[in-house]
């Protein structure tokens, strides 16, 4: 049988890992989306000036 305190620590570590990785990925999606929208707007402005 695994020591309950030790077991609890590993469980917490597991869930911290899950939400950290998911959080980083979601943040990367948001950042990439914002950057692409900014680039698109900039390119459209350039086209209009031309």
């Amino acid at each position, binding site marked *: *049988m*695994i020591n*309950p305190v*030790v*077991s*609890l620590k*590993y*469980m917490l*570590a*597991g*869930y911290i*890992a*899950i939400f950290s*990785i*998911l959080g980083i*990925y979601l943040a990367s*999606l948001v950042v*990439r*989306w914002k950057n*692409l*929208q900014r*680039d*698109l707007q900039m*390119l*459209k402005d*350039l*086209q209009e000036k*031309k």
Partner: protein
Amino acid sequence: MKAQPLVLKIMNVASGLLLAGSLAMVFLYAPLEAVMNHVQKIFYFHISNAWVGMLGFIVAAFAGIMFLVKKDLKWDIVEVAAVEISLVFFLIAIVTGSIWARPSWGTWWTWDARLTTAAILEMVYLAYMLLRQGIEDPDRRARFGAVYTLIGGISVPITFVSIRLWQTIHPAIIGTESASAQGGFAMAPAMLQTMFFCLFAFSVIFATLLWHRVRLGRLAQQVELQKLEAMQ
């Protein structure tokens, strides 16, 4: 780029609620396992992440076939989106498996058949992402991606059945040998219900993320086209 469609907005809310529901099922409904205690609760998210990870690699192979048949770049966008999301979910499965293994098996990692095939699977698709970046022509890149995901897709069933093909200490969850492997356990009905709820929840989360990532791919394609126009 158009605003999010209503269905996607509904899926966003549903994904959030299903994730919260999964956590509630894991921590408030599923009983505490007698031998492993709390660490066993990693299992529900571990298996769900592994499932959607493998599902995404299969979706990518399907998108690859569709690209080869239709020659439409939209399938390339779906393919790369599915691979990217699956890499994230499968990484979570590997990391949580390792954390679970430490107190259960006494080691973070062992070159067991399931663990080895899972690591190879992750690396095969990591290489796919890296190699794609080296090809500038969109059509060549898409053709390469389609063939690669088709061949890479073979590693998905190999990883899945590895615990049946070779001697392994990884527990076989689907089947009757659950408690026979080291770190395995017999599942109570509430545990099974929680597992299936988590599998469903993560399938919806995967579909939602896939849609968002496809929209991101389309936006990137739009930027590329605009750049080409600006250069002319």
